[in-house]
């Protein structure tokens, strides 16, 4: 992987909520086209780390860069100060996010959900954005739901719209925050299939998941987090055949 373009670079990231330290020094590098699955028990800090990458959470120390740009902060001397809202917003256009609870805009149709970012934020021409959104929606199997409001879509359909919404921004990186945890088993398959396709096509993805089948098949690298630290990382083969760390073995034995 040497020489590959680095999309996300995290270095010694610390984060506390009050007196509870949830990230105790996370360092991780993701190269272009890679799919990283972050696994680990709940409370291990996976989701918090993911939310730090697009600055939905502030970090206490360390640094996170996406495409070589520091996220959320500006370097001032040897200190980091929080960046302006406008700059943070601009950086987020590069980072798609798919949420556990979908978070579609309920007052907008499926199509409007997908075109909202490109039209309002990227200043894309409306006709162009609509064409692109229709293409993305048919790609996730929802060509017939273009004018439907989220309230009339099933969970799986909503999540697929959310994926299309993230893709419409043409981000350098997409974060998936337990994207299938709120879905029923049938819908999980649909959503994982689309995520697998994206991974296969070379989208750079960081996926927080409990779906070990997905991690095994789609991930280039699996990262195990526990108690605010990365305790083991490696290829899926390494992970699911011969994990090294006792904590990883215990976790996998429980979940598989």
């Amino acid at each position, binding site marked *: 992987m040497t020489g590959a373009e680095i999309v996300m670079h995290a270095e010694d990231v610390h984060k506390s909520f009050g007196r509870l330290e949830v990230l105790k020094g996370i360092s991780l590098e993701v190269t272009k086209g890679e799919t990283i699955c972050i696994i680990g028990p709940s409370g291990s800090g996976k989701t918090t780390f993911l939310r730090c990458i*697009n600055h*939905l959470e502030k970090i206490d120390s360390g640094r996170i860069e996406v495409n070589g740009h520091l996220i959320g902060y500006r370097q001032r001397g040897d200190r980091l100060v929080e960046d302006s*809202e*406008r700059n943070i*917003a*601009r950086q*987020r*256009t590069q*980072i*798609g*996010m798919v*949420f556990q*609870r979908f*978070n*579609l*805009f*309920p*007052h907008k149709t499926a199509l409007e959900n997908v075109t*909202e*970012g490109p039209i*309002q*934020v*990227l200043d894309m021409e409306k006709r162009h954005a609509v064409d692109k959104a229709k293409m993305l929606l048919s790609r996730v199997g929802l060509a017939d739901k273009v004018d439907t*409001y989220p*309230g*009339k879509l099933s969970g799986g359909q909503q999540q697929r719209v959310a994926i299309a*919404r*993230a893709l419409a*921004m043409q981000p350098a990186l997409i974060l998936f925050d337990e994207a299938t945890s709120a879905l029923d088993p049938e819908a999980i398959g649909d959503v994982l299939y689309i995520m697998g396709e994206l991974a296969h096509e070379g989208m750079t993805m960081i996926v927080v998941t409990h779906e070990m089948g997905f991690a095994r098949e789609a991930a280039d690298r699996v990262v195990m987090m526990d108690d605010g630290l990365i305790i083991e990382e490696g290829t899926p083969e390494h992970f699911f055949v011969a994990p090294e760390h006792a904590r990883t073995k215990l976790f996998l034995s429980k979940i598989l």
Partner: protein
Amino acid sequence: MHALVAVDLHIIWQQVFHPHSVFFRTLWATVYISIISQAAGVLLGLLAALARMSRFAPLRWISGVYVWIFRGTPVLVQIFYIYFAFSWPTLHFGFWTVPDAAIAGIVALSINEGAYMREIIRAGIDSVDRGQMEAAKSVGMTYGMAMRRIILPQAARVIVPPLGNEFNNMMKTTSLVYTIGVFEMFAFAEQNYSQFFIADYFLAVAVWYLMLTTVWTFIQAYIERRLAVSERGDELSFRERLQAAWNPMTSWARGGGG
């Protein structure tokens, strides 16, 4: 002297169906004072609500003191103070003249209304799921854009029903500005009464207030129905919304559920 229950139907009939042309000027005054005060009150309430949620502490304090003072003192006192403590201009827009007292009245009613609207708007914004702001930010929106395009349109569904009730109140509360000499509907009735000493002029003006609030009930039901179109499940029909608007108890009891 009139007997206790005697109602002079002739005067009611005349005042309601064949009012003097001067009456329409006072009706117009009531209507424009209500609309402008309510609109400005919503705007002030929105600003105060945003200030209340600001990261900048002094803005939160200002918002708190504003609501504390204007909800904690009588609106009549506010009207008098604002009218007599400052000098207000009389404005001319072609045929339409807005006297200084009306300006002062509008200012006082707006500021008072803003204090009540702040709570209503804040409750509306609070009712929107936190994930909405995060989703908006994750497609690159700034706070302001996310508020305008994502949060406030959803908050509107929660804000509009109590806002409608506020406007209903506003139309009636405007009668207070008669005390600083604004010639509006109630002032007209009062003037007639002091000339002829016939209480039925008050009854007649009550009918006019009732007509205004009733027309508003229909408009409110229409607006709420439009807002509910994209909402699943608890879509109320036009008739159900009318019934809710007419019966304050049921609309209050259901208020929490939106």
